Each structure stands twice: as C-alpha cells, then as structure tokens.
C-alpha cells in the first residue's frame, strides 16, 4: 500500500502551540472572578466522622462557604468512564457520593471549602475539625475477605465481584496427566499514573443557568452523563469543555474532581469555582493501578507444549468500585488470548474492596499485571525444560489466524511472529541467551523478552460509537469536529492525516481544535481502550469519504464533466487520467458557499458504530546488567517491536512506544506506592515515589511490523496502551537469564532483588 499523507512523519497539529506556551490547559483558562475550592480529606484510612466543626474555617477572612456531607443529598453515582449501558445489570457500581461521613481510604472527601483564593481555601480546609470513629483498616484483599470483617460498603462482603472463566476442557485432569506441573505466585504492587498535570476542573453556571465544567478529562461526554447521575439533573443541563490536557494514562478516565467543583459552584450560586489537586492529593485521591496477586499453574509435556493453564487472580480495588471488576476480567480474558495453542484455560478472579486508595484504569487496563505473571511463568517453564524461551513461546502460539472462542474476536499472530524474529536478530538472542547462562561474579548480564496481545477498542465488551463532523471552509480547507479526545497521544494529528488522505486536501489545510466541547463536538466515548485511531478513525474516514464525494459532485457540475473522471489531489480537483489540475478547492468552495443558484456548504456529520476489533501485538527485548551485591539493574538495551497494523504516523507511534517502555521500566524496577499499617501514605509525592528520569533510561528503541488490518482505517490497529505491557516481564526474564533467580514480584528494586538473591544463596 502506498499512501500520500497517512504513514508519513507529518508534524503534530498541536506541537507549535505546545513549544511556544500558547497551548492553554485548564489552569490557564481562568474566568473573571474565579473562586477557589479546597477539600477536607480524611486523615484515616477507614472510619466514621463522629463530629465535624466548620466554625473556625467559616470565620477565616476570605472564606465564602463550607459544604459538608450533611449539606448535600447523598446521591450515589459511579465514577468510571465506561459507556453507559441500557442493560441495568451491566451498569457500573454506584457507590460514591460527593462527600461522605464514612471514609474508606486516606484522602476520602468529607467536605469542601470555597474561598477568594487558593491559599485561603486550603487554610480553611485545614481548620475544619474532624473527629473520627476509627474502623478496622484492610490493606490486603485477604484481610478484607476474612470472616467477620467490617464491610467497607454495606452488603458487599468487601467483594466488588468474583467469577470464573473456562475455555476448552477441564484443566484439573490435564494437570494430573501432564509430564510436568509448575505453580507460581506473583505479587504486584500498586503504582500511579503520574501525569504531569494534576486533576483540575472548574465549574460555573452560564447565562442560561446551565452548568459548564471545564476539565482535564479523557472522557467529556461520559463526564456529562455521570454528572447528570450525580446531581439528578438532565444531561443537557451540563456542558463539558476539555482544553489541552497534560496527560491522563487512564487516571482521567474516572470522574473525580468534576462532581466536587459542581457541588461547590452550586453552593455559591453558580459562581466559577476551581479545584486543582496538589501532587499529594493526586497520589492518594484519584486512581491507582491495581495491586494484584496472581497464582499461575501450568501442565506441560517435556517438549514444552503447554496443555492447560489455570490462573487465580485477586485484585485489590481500594475504597470504591470505580471500574468495578472490569479490569480484573480483562486480565482473565487476556490470559486466554496470546498463547492460543494451549487450548485449555481456567481462571478464577475476584476484585475486592480494601482501604487503599481507589484502583482504576491505568495504561493497558490490567494487562501489565497478568502479562507479568504469564510471561514470567513461561520463562520459568523454559528454564525447567532447558528450552529457549523464544522457542517455548513459538510452540504455544497458534500458526493460523483464528477466532478466539472466548472473546469472539478475530485474531492473527503473524505480525508477532515476525516481530520476535526481528527482535532476536537485533539483540543477537541466540548467542547471548545461551552465553549468559551460569555466570559467576558480581556483575552479570542477561537478555529477556516478553510478548503481548491487546485489543483495539472495547468491542465486544462495550458498544463502540464515534462521531466526526467535517466542513469545507470558504477557502477549500477542511475543519473537523470530533468527539475523540486529544490528551497528548497525538490522536488529532492522525485524524487529520486520515482526512487528508481520503479527500485529497493537503494535511496543512485540515484543521482541528484540540478542545472538545459537548455542546459542539459529536458524541464519542473518549480516550481509553486503545480505541481512538481504530474506532474514531473509521468515523473520520467515513465522513471524509462523504466530503470527497460531495467535492467531486460539485466539481462535476461546475466543470460539466462526469464525476467519475475526476479526483482530488494537493488541494486541486484534477483530471483522473492526465492528473491535470482543473480547479482549486479554494475556488470550488467559494462557489459552493456563494453560488446564487445552488449554494450549499460541503459538510457532513457521521455517527458510526463499530462492531469489530483487531488484535494488536508486540514484543519487548532487553539486555541488562545486574549487580548482585547492590541489587541494582542497569538496562543496557531495550526495544519494542509492535504490530499495530499500518502506522499512521511513525513519529507519534515511536513516541507512544518510548513512553510505554519508560513507564514499564518504572513499573519493573522503581515504582511502588507505600503505606504504613494504618493505610497512611509514605511516598505520596514525586520525590519519594520514584519516577524514571533521563538518567534511569538507556536509549529506547521502537520498531514496527506493519501488517494490514482488514477492518481498521488504512489498515491501522491500536497502539498506545500495550506499549507498556511487556517491559516488566522482559526485564524480569533478563534478570533470570543473568542470575538464574526467578523474581516474582514487582517492583524489582534493590531491596527486592537483594532478598531474592539472598534466598537463592547468591549473597
């Protein structure tokens, strides 16, 4: 396939705005007479508020209003950014109120303050005196599930949900008869998204008394729906505006700060009220990546053919349901997706309530956790059988394209197989993997790899709907309104490339505004699920095809030739055969707007439901050097090779891969949220929570095997989230290759490695 604009390194639409400081984020768009909100947060991880005294806060000069749980109707709403379901049982759990007197984690919201400036608001929030009746604190799922444990949510037994999946035959008899059985336990810490822009929003009532919310969100249309639930007001009463957003990674796919600003604004007569979370609040009172414990069991024969696998997954959901059981179910589904030759799978999964901060969506939605277990486990098996880990993977992947019986999604592994071959060559796998076994000495090198498969969008689990409006301006340029949400991943850019490719209008002449506004932007569920390029892209192509057809029709009329003889290229209507330019789009557009006989603007609006998915795949290879005495791991080389179908923009695609690997390195070696036994945070800031810096990375590599997706726009599939999936297990497997030690917990920081090396007798 050859393309003109798609598959090219065009410059991001928003990049000049971002390097000049002209891009305006939520905090940069303040209203006149802005008021500032601050929240009174729980200082205990579990308890009832016995008494609350707001008098000192109210007396502080500059304070306008204090609002507590007592002042608001206790309406329960869900917070998670899933699409709404018309089926009542499929709806998200509604267990959150704006403020509460039953606090379920450190930082839970009890009250809010409105003041003339943010200093005063925060000061007043500190002056609110709260007395607690402390309740037992459960930080681990096992504790919360004990007989007689205090229910964090009444009637829940501290279970968000539990269920079981099965594919193929009963695994138990297969384990009995297999040559070998291996069982391993994995223990994975919670981590944070750490987007650089903290949660922020402001709300006010406009001239028509509608409530306008400006928010750094990934899901403006879903925010509108959830606010309508939280305040029992019609959807149309709300308008959500999303300006430039400073990263989200799933944390802004939950509705967190928006109900708070709406409640506070309504309490002061609809005046604008802004809340900007501090970094410390962001760490404990937004969402986390679930802490998970996974037991994996495999039965296999001596040649490495795995006959059956069983997973038991226990996900720690924290104080509220948020995404409910969906992330844990995604782990279970993904467990049965990559190595389809295995055929017989069983999984048992549970999501619990505990008194940790609330877990939710974070880049790749549970798949990093299950992949750490599955991919580590494969290398443990390879070690047992003295097989090459790459060969073991090859044996247990299918040869052919197939339909995954469990998920119902069509599936091809061909791109992944090619990616593995390319990666092996790039890192000299065959030589190094063998040579690095059985080293002695303080510093030891190792190579490791890990694979993944990942969905593009959320069909068939959720309905997939996207919208695109395109209009030709008087100068022949196109203007697009999308409901898809640019949060830094580069979606606006790839959509403009798609529109340019389809219509023949040049990329520079396709315009888009980074702002999403529910009053003007078509409906689209938003930025999550690695869905926008694949799902919204299809809506964009459909709309662009209609525009292209209208251009030809108008031109055929004006030029008095058959439209089948015409095409559009480089902003001109051309003769298809000779490529001769016949008329500029600028002239054509002007005529369509102002023609006295047949004036009509070239415009269209498309709402497109997608009922397909296109599995994207990839592999990470890494080479590390492990210092046995210090437990420190130096990454010497690391790269991902992805099959995301056609790469729409190599620059932005590489950027996604680099960012994913970086987040994966943090996950593997550095990051963890720490709490004391009372559930109080120990590292709720960017100094003590260890985020990778420029010095923690080697050069990161990104490469692509470009297959062609039959269903995706220009053959594209999704890319963004899974870039982070294979990093941690690849590093774990490289440490295994270097040292012979199986490390089955995250993060593999010096403390963890020291303990593992000590247990293995290396130290």
């Amino acid at each position, binding site marked *: 396939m050859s393309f003109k604009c798609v598959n090219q*390194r065009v*410059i*991001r639409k*928003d*990049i*000049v*705005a*971002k*390097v*000049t*400081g*002209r*891009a*305006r*984020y939520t*905090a*940069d768009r303040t209203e006149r007479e802005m008021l500032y909100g601050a929240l009174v947060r729980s200082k205990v991880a579990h308890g009832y508020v016995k008494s609350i005294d707001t008098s000192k806060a109210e007396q502080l000069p500059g304070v306008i209003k204090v609002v507590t749980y007592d002042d608001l109707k206790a309406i329960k709403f869900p917070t998670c950014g899933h699409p709404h379901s018309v089926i009542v049982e499929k709806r998200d759990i509604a267990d959150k109120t704006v403020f509460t007197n039953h606090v379920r984690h450190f930082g839970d919201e009890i009250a809010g303050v409105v003041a003339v400036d943010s*200093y005063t608001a925060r000061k007043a929030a500190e002056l609110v005196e709260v007395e607690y009746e402390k309740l037992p604190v459960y930080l681990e799922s096992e504790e919360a599930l004990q007989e007689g444990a205090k229910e964090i949510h009444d009637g829940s037994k501290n279970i968000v949900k539990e269920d079981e999946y099965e594919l193929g035959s009963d695994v138990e008899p297969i384990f009995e008869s297999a040559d070998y059985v291996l069982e391993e336990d994995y223990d994975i810490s919670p981590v944070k*998204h*750490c*987007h*650089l*822009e*903290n949660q922020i929003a402001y709300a006010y009532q406009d001239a028509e008394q509608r409530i306008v919310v400006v928010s750094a969100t990934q899901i403006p249309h879903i925010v509108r729906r959830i606010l309508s639930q939280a305040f029992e007001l019609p959807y149309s009463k709300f308008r959500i505006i999303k300006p*430039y*957003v*400073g*990263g989200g*990674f799933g944390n802004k796919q939950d509705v967190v700060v928006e109900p708070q600003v709406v409640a506070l604004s309504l309490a002061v007569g609809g005046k604008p009220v802004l809340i*900007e979370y*501090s*970094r410390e609040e962001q760490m404990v009172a937004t969402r986390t990546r679930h802490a998970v414990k996974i037991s994996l069991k495999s039965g296999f024969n001596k040649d490495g053919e795995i006959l059956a696998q069983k997973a038991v997954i226990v996900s720690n959901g924290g104080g509220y349901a948020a995404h409910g059981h969906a992330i844990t179910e995604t782990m279970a589904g993904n467990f049965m997706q990559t190595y389809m030759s295995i055929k017989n799978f069983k999984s048992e999964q549970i999501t619990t309530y505990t008194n940790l901060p609330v877990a939710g969506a974070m880049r790749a939605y549970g798949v990093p956790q299950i992949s750490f277990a599955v991919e580590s486990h494969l290398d443990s098996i390879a070690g047992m059988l003295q097989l090459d880990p790459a060969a073991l993977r090859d044996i247990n992947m299918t040869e052919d394209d197939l339909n995954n019986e469990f998920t119902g999604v069509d599936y091809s592994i061909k791109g992944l197989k090619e990616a593995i071959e390319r990666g092996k060559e790039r890192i000299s796998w065959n030589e190094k993997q063998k040579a690095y076994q059985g080293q002695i000495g303080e510093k030891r090198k190792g190579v490791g790899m890990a694979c993944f498969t990942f969905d593009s969008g959320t069909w068939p689990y959720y309905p997939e709907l996207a919208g695109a409006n395109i209009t030709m301006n008087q100068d022949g340029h196109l203007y697009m309104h999308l409901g898809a949400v640019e*949060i*830094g*991943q*580069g979606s606006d850019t790839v959509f403009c490339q798609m529109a340019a490719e389809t219509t023949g209008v040049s990329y520079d002449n396709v315009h888009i505004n980074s702002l999403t506004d529910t009053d003007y932007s078509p409906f689209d569920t938003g930025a999550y699920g690695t869905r926008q390029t694949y799902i919204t892209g299809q809506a964009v192509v459909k709309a662009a095809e209609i525009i292209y057809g209208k251009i030809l029709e108008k031109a055929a009329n004006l030029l008095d030739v058959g439209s089948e003889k015409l095409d559009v290229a480089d902003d001109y209507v051309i003769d298809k055969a000779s490529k001769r330019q016949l008329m500029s789009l600028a002239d054509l557009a002007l005529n369509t707007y102002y023609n006295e006989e047949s004036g009509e603007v070239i415009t269209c609006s498309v709402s497109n439901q997608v009922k397909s998915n296109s599995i994207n795949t990839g592999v990470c290879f890494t080479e590390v050097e492990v210092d046995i005495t210090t437990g420190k791991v130096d990454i010497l080389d690391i790269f991902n090779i992805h099959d995301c179908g056609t790469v729409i923009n190599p*620059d*932005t695609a*590489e*950027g996604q891969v*680099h*960012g*994913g*690997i*970086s*987040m994966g390195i943090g996950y593997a070696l550095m990051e963890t949220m720490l709490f004391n036994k009372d559930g109080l945070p120990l590292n709720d*800031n*960017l*100094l003590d929570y260890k*985020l*990778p*810096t*420029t*010095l923690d*990375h080697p*050069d*990161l590599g990104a490469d692509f095997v470009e297959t062609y997706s039959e269903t995706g726009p220009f053959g594209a599939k999704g890319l963004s989230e899974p870039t982070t999936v294979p990093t941690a297990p690849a590093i774990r497997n490289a440490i295994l290759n270097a040292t012979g030690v199986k490390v089955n917990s995250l993060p593999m920081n010096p403390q963890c490695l020291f303990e593992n090396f000590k247990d293995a007798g290396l130290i």
Partner: protein
Amino acid sequence: MLKQINITLNGVERSVEIDERESLLEVLRDKLYMTSVKHGCGVGECGACAVLIDGVAIDSCIYLATWADGKEIRTVEGFEQDGELNAMQEAFVEEGAVQCGFCIPGFLVSATELKETNKSYTRDEVRKALSGHLCRCTGYQKIVEATEKGLEKE
C-alpha cells in the same frame, strides 16, 4: 505583606505588586499571565515550572517572587524572535519530541540554557542536564535527541 518588585520579563521591564509569601511561579502565572510556566508539584520535584533567571534555569515554584526583584526572567513565551522559534523549539518540533506538552516548557528552558553556553555536550551530559525534569509521556528519548539537534543548530 504586599511589596512592589521590578523585573525584566522576556525583555520588557515590568513592575508588579506581590504578596511576600508568593512564589515566582504564582506571580508569573497569576499576575503576569505567563502560563507556559506549569505547576506540576509546587515543591521542586518535577521541573515543569522552570524559568531562566539571569540565564540560569531555576524551578520557579520554590523561588520566592521577592527574590526576583531586579532580575532578568525569561520564559518560553519570550523565546521566539521576530516570529521565529528558537533553535530548541524548532528542534523539538522537528523531532516530534512533544506529547501532552505539559513538561515541555520546562525542558525547553533547560535546553535553551545549555544552548546558550555555546559548548558541545555528549548524550550523557545532555541527559544529566535535563534530569531535573520529569516527563511521563515520552520516555525522554525524542527530548534528548531534539536537545542534541538544537545544540547543533546554527
């Protein structure tokens, strides 16, 4: 306590009334509308608020506005000359070093500080010079490459 300070901001002399408790970040953003200067942590951990003070990149969130009296402050808003991006801005655009963009003004400040030394730097030295800035989107790869490219530009 309110107090008047005089600074040169992006080449223009400005006089502004500040509260002595205010950080330079707050004054730049709220009173002088230099919104390229970002608030990521407020306590010197992330580098999103960096500005050039007399040519040196400093986290403005932990620099009291009152200390800036009489000093020359430069932010990304002042980097363009006659509508042309500076070498670092240009290199960041060409290399596609930007994703969400929230960390980028801070990086550009430190990269521009490097550029103005007129020295050459190894990749490790570039990494070291930028290590006070956190970015969660890019893995720093294209930022490091863009900075090297910017250093090479005329």
